C-alpha cells in the first residue's frame, strides 16, 4: 500500500495530527476516525450534498475531498453548531420551528450550507437560499420549509 500522509488538521476547534491513507475521503475520516457521524454518506459522488462540511469556511462536499489534502486546514462540521449544553444554534432552532426537516438525513448538509450562506449574506432572500442550497437534495420536505427556516434564521440575527 502507498505511504500514509501526515496531516495536521483542526476539526471543530480541536487540533489533530494524524497519519491517513491517501484514499481516505474527508467524509470517512470524519465518520470513522473521529467518530463525527453528523456528515452523512449519501451518494458518495458529489450529487446529494448530505456530506457538506465547511473547509476553511467554504461549504465543501466531504465525499469529494481526501483527508490527505487537509494539512493546515480548518474543518467545521454540524457537531459544532449546538452548544455543549444542548442549546441549539439559531439555524438549528429555525429548522425545528419551521418544520425544515422530516427524516433528517439531508439536514446536516443543509445546515452547513445554510451557515455558509448566512456568513456572507446575513439576511438572505428566499432566492438567495434556493441558490445557496441548490446542491443539497431533500427527498421529504419539498424544500419550502427549508427555505423558510433559513430565511427565518437570517431574520432573527
Amino acid at each position, binding site marked *: *500500500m*502507498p*505511504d500514509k*500522509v501526515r496531516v495536521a488538521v483542526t476539526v471543530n476547534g480541536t487540533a489533530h495530527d494524524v497519519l491517513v*491513507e*491517501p*484514499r481516505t*475521503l474527508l467524509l*470517512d475520516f470524519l465518520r470513522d476516525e473521529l467518530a463525527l457521524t453528523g456528515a452523512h454518506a449519501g451518494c*458518495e*459522488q*458529489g450529487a446529494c*450534498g448530505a456530506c*457538506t462540511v465547511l473547509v476553511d469556511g*467554504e*461549504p*465543501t*462536499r466531504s*465525499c*469529494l*475531498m*481526501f483527508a*490527505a*489534502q487537509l*494539512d493546515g486546514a480548518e474543518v467545521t462540521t454540524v457537531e459544532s453548531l449546538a452548544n455543549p449544553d444542548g442549546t441549539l444554534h439559531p439555524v438549528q432552532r429555525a429548522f425545528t420551528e419551521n418544520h425544515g426537516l422530516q427524516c433528517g438525513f439531508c439536514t446536516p448538509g443543509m445546515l452547513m*450550507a445554510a451557515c*455558509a450562506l448566512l456568513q456572507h449574506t446575513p439576511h438572505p432572500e428566499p432566492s438567495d437560499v434556493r*441558490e*445557496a442550497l*441548490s*446542491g*443539497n437534495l431533500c427527498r421529504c420536505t419539498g424544500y419550502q420549509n427549508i427555505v423558510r427556516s433559513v430565511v427565518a434564521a437570517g431574520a432573527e440575527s
Partner: protein
Amino acid sequence: MKPAPFAYLAPRSVDEALAHLAEHGSEARPLAGGQSLVRLMNTRLATPSVLIDINRIDELAAISRENGTVRIGAVARQRACETSSHVRDGVPVFAEAVGQVAHPSVRRRGTAVGSVAFADPSAELPTALLAADGEVVAASTRGERSIAADDFFTGPFTSALAPDELAVALRIPVSAAARTGSAFVEESRRHGELPMCGVAAVITLDDDGAVAQVRIALCGVHRRPIRARDAEAALLSEHPDDELLQAAGALAASAADPVGDCHGSAAFRRHLAAVLTRRALATAISRAEERNA
C-alpha cells in the same frame, strides 16, 4: 464503493509537479478541485496509481489580465472566475457560463481549468472557451505550448494534452471591438445539472450593424464541444433578422450529432440546438447593440 489505493504527492511548485508527471505519466492524474475526478475515483471509473495534488501551488491560483488576454490559473476556483472583474468584463461569455456550472458549493472548489481539461462534451466551460477563441496553456518538462480550444477537445473526455502535460492555465482574448456581445444559454432537466444542450455565442457587429465576426459553440449535442461553422458563415457580413437567426439555428442543429439518453432523446437535443442557438444569438446581438449606445 471507495477509491482504489494511490500514492499522494503535493508539490509546491509547477516544476515539481511537472517532474512528478514526467516520472509517472499516464499512471498519474493531477488533482485540482476534484469535483469530477474524485467522483470518478469513488466509483472506480478512474483508478490513478499516483495523485498529484496541485492545490498547494500558489502561483496557479491567479486570475490576471495581460496583453489583451485574461489568464486563469489551474487552481483558480470557478467561483473566483464568476466574481472576477477580469473575467466578467474581459470575457463575459465565460463568466456567464461559469455561473451555470453545477451548484455554488461545487463552484467553490471546482476549477475552470479542471473542467476544461476534463473535456466533458456536455459541460459549459469547454464550450465557452471554444466560443471565446481561448487556448489552453500546457506545460511539461519538455517545455510549454498553447493549444487552441479548436484543437484541444478530441473526443468525449479526451483532449490533446499528453500524459506528461499539465494544463497550467487558460488564456482567453479580450475582445477590443466596441460592438461585441455574447451569451451563454443552456437547458437542463434540473437547475445545476449538466445541460442537455448549451450554446455560447460571441458576435461583433460593424458600424452598419452587419456581422463582422461571430463564433458559436455547442455542448451536449456531439461527442465533443463543437463550433457551428455553417451557421457562422451564414451570418457573416449579413444584417441579422429573425429569419436569419432561425436559419442559423437550423444550421447549428445540422452540425449536431447528438446521442440520446435518459435526459433527452437525440431528436430533442437537436431541437434544442436550433432553438438555443437562435436565442443565444438574439441575446448576444442585443448586448452588442447596447454596447454601442
